[in-house]
Each structure stands twice: as C-alpha cells, then as structure tokens.
C-alpha cells in the first residue's frame, strides 16, 4: 500500500469486521437471527455488485440468493480467517464471473446459430424507461454501462469493488485472489481505459 492511502478503512470498519465475523459465528451456533442481520446489512451491496457485472436484475437476484444460500450452507465450517465481506464478495464474484462465462459461451453459440446478427437481449433487458429520465441521462448511463462492460472481467470486478464497495486494494486482492500490486495494475489500466471513454462527459 502506498504511503498516504488510508488502509485501515476507519475504526468503525474494523469494528464492523469483527461484528460481521461474530455474527457469522453465532449463525454457526444455530442463531438464525444473526443470519438475518448479515443479510439485511449486505443484501443490497451484493445484489448491486452482481447486477453491475451481469447487467440483468433477475439474474443478479438469483445469483445473490445463491451467495447467501452458500453462506448459510457453510455456516458449520465457517472460520473467521478473513473479513466476512471479503469472503462474501469472493463468493459473489465467483458466481457472477462463472455466469458471465457461461452466458458468453451460450451467446457465442447463439450467434453461430443466428445469422441475422441481432444484438443480445441482455443489453437492453433491464432498461425500464421512466418519464423522469431524460434522454441525456439515458445516453450517459448507457455509455457508462458499455464502458464498464467492455473492460476485461478482472478489471471490471476490481473497478466495481473499488468504486461502489469502497474496498481497499488489500481487500480487493483477497476477493480476486491475486496480489495487491496486481490489483493496482488492474485498476490503473481499467481507469486509464475509462478515462479515455468517459472523461468527456459533463456531470449531470
């Protein structure tokens, strides 16, 4: 970690680490209420993270269900060796990236079968146009989505964890099971690409 970059994520975060692990240990002892607390705390971030990777809300929710189901299943063997959130997002990213690979393979097969060259439905599947949404906002959103979707899988995952989950490099490294310097490199290249594609945007 570079000097000057906050590594501790604050005392509150450190306490939260212990609290989550403590809750999970209670789940291990059969306390269902603690599982409910963990679900309440991490539900939105897990679903949103997966959604930004797979870009389909129904799939994101289905995969998030699988994430929490796996957490519940592994309660008896749980050992607090890493931050609970790191462990949780490792499961989430594994599931989402596997789904993306399967989907990519399936879409590749579809393209081979379908000579009409239709765009994959996934690109527009979750667009729910609302009256409030301006055209400019919709265009901007689409541009952001496409810019992120164009990143290689690991870079994309690293950006999502860094930007939306506010994870430190060390934590991202644990989720992606790589070194901290690899994470720095991934993020640097990812943001370099995003700057080239999105820096022209005016804030709305």
């Amino acid at each position, binding site marked *: 970690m*570079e*000097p*000057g*970059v*906050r590594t501790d994520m604050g005392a509150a975060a450190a306490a939260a680490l212990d609290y989550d692990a403590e809750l999970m240990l209670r789940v291990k002892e059969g306390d269902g209420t603690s599982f409910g607390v963990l*679900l309440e705390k991490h*539900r*939105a971030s897990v*679903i*949103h993270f997966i*959604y*930004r990777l797979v870009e389909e*809300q129904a799939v*994101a*929710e289905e995969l*998030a*269900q699988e994430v*929490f*189901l796996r957490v*519940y*299943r592994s309660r008896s063997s749980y050992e607090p060796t890493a931050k609970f959130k790191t462990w949780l997002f490792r499961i989430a990213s594994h599931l989402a990236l596997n789904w993306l690979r399967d989907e990519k393979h399936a879409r590749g097969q579809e393209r081979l079968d379908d000579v009409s060259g239709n765009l994959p439905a996934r690109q527009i599947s*979750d667009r*729910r146009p609302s009256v409030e949404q301006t055209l400019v*906002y919709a265009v*901007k*959103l689409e*541009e*952001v*989505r496409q810019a*992120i979707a164009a990143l290689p899988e690991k870079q994309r995952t690293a*950006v999502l964890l*860094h*930007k*939306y989950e*506010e994870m*430190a490099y060390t934590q991202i490294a644990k989720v992606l099971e790589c070194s901290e310097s690899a994470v*720095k490199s991934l*993020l*640097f290249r990812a*943001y370099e690409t*995003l*700057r080239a594609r*999105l*820096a*022209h*945007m005016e*804030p*709305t």
Partner: protein
Amino acid sequence: MNCPIQNRNPEALVAYTAGALDREAARALERHMADCAACRSMAADQAAVWKALDAWEAPAISPDFDRRLYRRIDREVRFSWWDRLTRAFRPMPLRQALPVTASAGLLLMAGLLLQHPGPSTRVAPRGEIVRANQVESTLDDLDLLRQFGAPDSAESAHPDAM
C-alpha cells in the same frame, strides 16, 4: 515524462479522486498538481470518470427477495433432515448403483452355484434318486398285494396252479 507521480505512483491520483488519501498526502498532491499540468489533467479526467460512474444506479431490489431466500433455506433444512432419514432407502445414482448391482449379481450367482453344484458332484444324488424309485415301486407292489389279500395273492403268485 518527468513527473514523479505519473512515473512512480499514478495510483495516488486515483486514490485522491476517490477521497482515499489522508489529508497530508492529499495536500502534498494538490501542491504538486499546482505545478504539473499532466497530473492536473489526469486528476480532472479521473474525477469526470468518478462522477460518470456515480450515475450508474442499480435497480430496486424485489420486495420478496428475503422471503424467496428463506423459503429456499427452509426447503434445504427440511430436505437435509429428510435426506438423512431416507438416505439408506434411496435408490442410488446409476454410477454408484452399477458396481453394487454387479457385486450383488456375482454373490447371487455364487450362492446358486453352491446350492446347485456342477455335473461332477451330481452323481451321488442321481444314485439316490434311482434308489428312491426302486423303493417306491416296491412299496407299490406291496400295496397291490395287500389289495388282493393273502389267498388271492398266493394264486396270483402262482398263476400256473389254476
């Protein structure tokens, strides 16, 4: 490029934009950017990216997400109990069942062979069967004699005497 930040620590600009630098490091970077156009430009671009990414909000979560999850957990818990109870009586998957069936078949064949041994060992029982037939026919003859009574039996015993 001679900029020490761009050459050695470009991540600092990303961290600065993300608000992840501590106050001292942030001020040092701001002093540097005051004189470095390249870093100023990069930080401005990174800030634009940061803002653009803020625009991407995830949709609302289904209100029945928890209910669906708990139903799955409940099903799994119930299934695991039922699973433990019925494991011994369940039909096995084909891959596991094949060797077990083959072994059972072999044991059955071995049992049948032991109960009905081959031709070489069947000589003695055949002898016994022959003897049993002889005993049976003798008993039939005796019954016949008994039916005719003793005097008749003498006649019949000597037909030429008539």
